[in-house]
């Protein structure tokens, strides 16, 4: 690396990215970024030109979720910066490592309502893990180093760095720091041995244990450890929406997802358990339902890297602050001998049997008769079958998201990308593009709704430009389905403003962008069209599946109800 050389801020910026081993950035140029784009022109960083800055952030997010590396975004000041806010908030809620660079008006103009000035540091303070305004070119390298460090360590999250134009044009000697020292930021990784022992003793005394695993398992790359831990003890395991893929979806111990649209077995098990082992999860209200009646008989063990997650919503009896992977390893090492484990598994076999019964009595289902309109669940089962469960799936938000979570079985981590915390419609397509860029040879499918897809549809052009064969499978019900479902159930079928009868012809739309387009109206054609789509490798594909508009997502726990009070099919 070039050292001790005098360079412009723009050159230093690119050198910092190289030093951080950034290969790809997602961006959109503008006035204050001209000096940077001029340097970018000479490589070696790959720059993906998006069509809207929100798209850039979701792409970086998708890239980060599948690869585990931080996503990097570069946008201009003012509107470029404000357009990133939804994407940043999405990443923040789901703890996704990301560094967003925004250009800013020259230092001397800050605060003067200059052209394209926005106080983006102020605006994003509550939705970033940390953010910076670079005020002196001498601080540029230190700040960038810290930004990457903060984004990727501890509980990951987005960090924003706002860089005024005069910093890019100024010059100084380039030296990238080797080390970061932030005394006020020291995440805890190793679990406290005393707590680990206490937790194990408690688990081994339980009769009806349940593991409830969340997105933290994926963020810490701990799915192997989790699987081993659950297997050794024979623990029935459920995951949150964010935890899907963190424990094999087809594993006999997997009860499926829990919560508002969780499986009957998972929700009943969590309600009756005497020992709830929460791992990298945060007791979100979509998981707990009515909090006072959540896991009422359980002693709670909670492993999480973020101390604020512990006892925030549900009182925790045995907290272990630390990195999920490290703590699980410690727990596995501290497990008793095989004979004792066997005895424990035998002791909970009655409980496992009860869960098995719940699973078979009320498995996830829908009308499989094949009569009438295409069933959206059928489309997802076909996608699962024809991709052999090996695709990367992204979703939009609403029914499409929940059906994808229920009917595609995720055996591997980092294969299911969804906006869990913020629930951002418009997330799926750009996230799929980001994922495809990270893994060019993988099949990447955005399971979409006709409403959500229109929120970032412009990114089809990005996918065409970079020849990315992302498949957009629109479960087109001509309505804002999830909201319609609530209106059906709780608002007397008064379908206020949820009908989207005016929509583009998605096939023509695809073709006008230079993508491939298919429309499917009959269930018997679903398989054939998916197969044709899977053969296309040089451009994105939109499939408009005309599905049953009145289909609902079940089970469903009405908002505010305890999770064992489910509406079933």
């Amino acid at each position, binding site marked *: 690396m070039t050292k001790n050389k005098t360079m412009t801020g723009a050159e230093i910026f690119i050198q910092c990215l190289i030093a951080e081993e950034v290969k790809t950035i997602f961006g959109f140029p503008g006035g204050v970024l001209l000096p940077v784009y001029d340097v970018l022109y000479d490589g070696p960083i790959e720059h993906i030109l998006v069509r809207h800055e929100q798209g850039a952030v979701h792409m970086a997010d998708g890239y980060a979720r599948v690869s585990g590396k931080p996503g990097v975004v570069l946008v201009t000041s003012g509107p470029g910066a404000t357009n990133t806010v939804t994407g940043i908030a999405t990443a923040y809620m789901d703890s996704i490592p990301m560094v967003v660079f925004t250009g800013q008006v020259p230092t001397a103009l800050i605060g003067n309502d200059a052209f394209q000035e926005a106080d983006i*540091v*102020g605006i994003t*303070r*509550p939705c970033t*893990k*940390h953010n910076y*305004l670079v*005020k002196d070119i001498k601080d540029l390298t230190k700040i960038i180093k810290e930004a990457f460090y*903060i984004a990727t360590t501890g509980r990951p999250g987005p960090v924003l760095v706002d860089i005024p134009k005069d910093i890019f044009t100024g010059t100084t000697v380039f030296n990238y720091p080797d080390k970061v020292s*932030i*005394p*006020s*930021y020291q995440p805890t990784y190793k679990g406290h041995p005393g707590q680990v022992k206490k937790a194990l003793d408690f688990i081994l005394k339980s009769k009806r244990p349940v593991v409830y695993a969340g997105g933290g398992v994926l963020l810490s790359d701990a799915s192997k450890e989790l699987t081993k831990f659950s297997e050794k003890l024979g623990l029935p395991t459920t995951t949150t929406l964010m935890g899907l893929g963190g424990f094999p979806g087809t594993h006999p111990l997997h009860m499926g997802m829990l919560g508002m649209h969780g499986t009957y077995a998972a929700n009943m098990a969590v309600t009756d358990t005497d020992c709830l082992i929460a791992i990298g999860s945060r007791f979100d209200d979509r998981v707990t339902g009515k909090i006072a009646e959540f896991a009422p008989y359980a002693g709670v063990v909670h492993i999480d890297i*973020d*101390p*604020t997650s512990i*006892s*925030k919503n549900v009182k925790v009896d045995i907290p272990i602050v630390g990195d999920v992977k490290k703590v699980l390893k410690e727990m596995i090492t501290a497990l008793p001998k095989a004979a004792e484990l066997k005895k424990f598994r035998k002791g909970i076999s009655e409980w496992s049997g009860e869960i098995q019964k719940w699973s078979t009595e009320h498995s996830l289902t829908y009308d499989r008769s094949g009569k009438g309109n295409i069933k959206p669940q059928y489309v997802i089962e076909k996608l699962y079958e024809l991709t052999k469960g090996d695709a990367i799936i992204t979703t939009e938000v609403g029914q499409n998201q929940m059906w994808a979570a229920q009917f595609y079985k995720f055996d591997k981590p980092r294969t299911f990308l969804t906006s869990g915390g913020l629930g951002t419609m418009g997330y799926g397509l750009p996230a799929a593009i980001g994922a495809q860029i990270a893994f060019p040879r993988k099949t990447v499918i955005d399971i979409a709704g006709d409403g959500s897809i229109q929120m970032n549809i412009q990114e089809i052009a990005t996918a065409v430009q970079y020849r990315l064969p992302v498949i957009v499978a629109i479960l087109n019900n001509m309505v804002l389905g999830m909201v319609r479902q609530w209106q059906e159930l709780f608002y007397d079928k008064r379908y206020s403003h949820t009908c989207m009868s005016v929509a583009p012809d998605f096939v023509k739309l695809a073709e006008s962008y230079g993508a491939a387009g298919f429309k499917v109206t009959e269930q018997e054609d679903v398989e054939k069209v998916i197969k044709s789509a899977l053969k296309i490798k040089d451009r994105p594909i939109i499939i408009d599946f005309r599905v049953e508009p009145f289909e609902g997502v079940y089970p469903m726990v009405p908002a505010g109800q305890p999770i064992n009070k489910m509406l079933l099919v």
Partner: protein
Amino acid sequence: MRHTISVFVTNEFGVLSRISGLFSGRGFNIESLTVAETMDPEISRMTIITRGNDKILEQITKQLNKLISVIKVHDFTNEKHIERELAMIKVSHKTENRAEILSIVEIFRGRILDISPKSYTIEITGACEKIEAITEILRPFGIKEIARTGSLVIGRSPK
């Protein structure tokens, strides 16, 4: 329950809004907040008076600690500490009550900072309760204006 917390933060641009934004964004309440540099000019000390049950206080402390700019959080509530606040009170006076006002100021160990034909400006230092007490006593005379600094806190040294 009322809590007095000291928060040591890196003395950088925007840090005050990080702290106040955390409180408003999460619905925690702030009764008073003061901030100034410590002996080390790179570190500032904030004193925050807040209210909440144990669960809320646990969250406040943890959420503050989670901010990258926060170096240390110290809740003084359950230990020996000294709390002081300064207030300036402008109170009306008339010929017949001047002596009475002056004796009240003396009892509270206050000082007269400014005298005009119609009002006294009084300086008073003490714990929050003391300031509230003198305010109540002076209220019948006609308080025109009050300026308070908010509380400062420091731990008592072990004997």
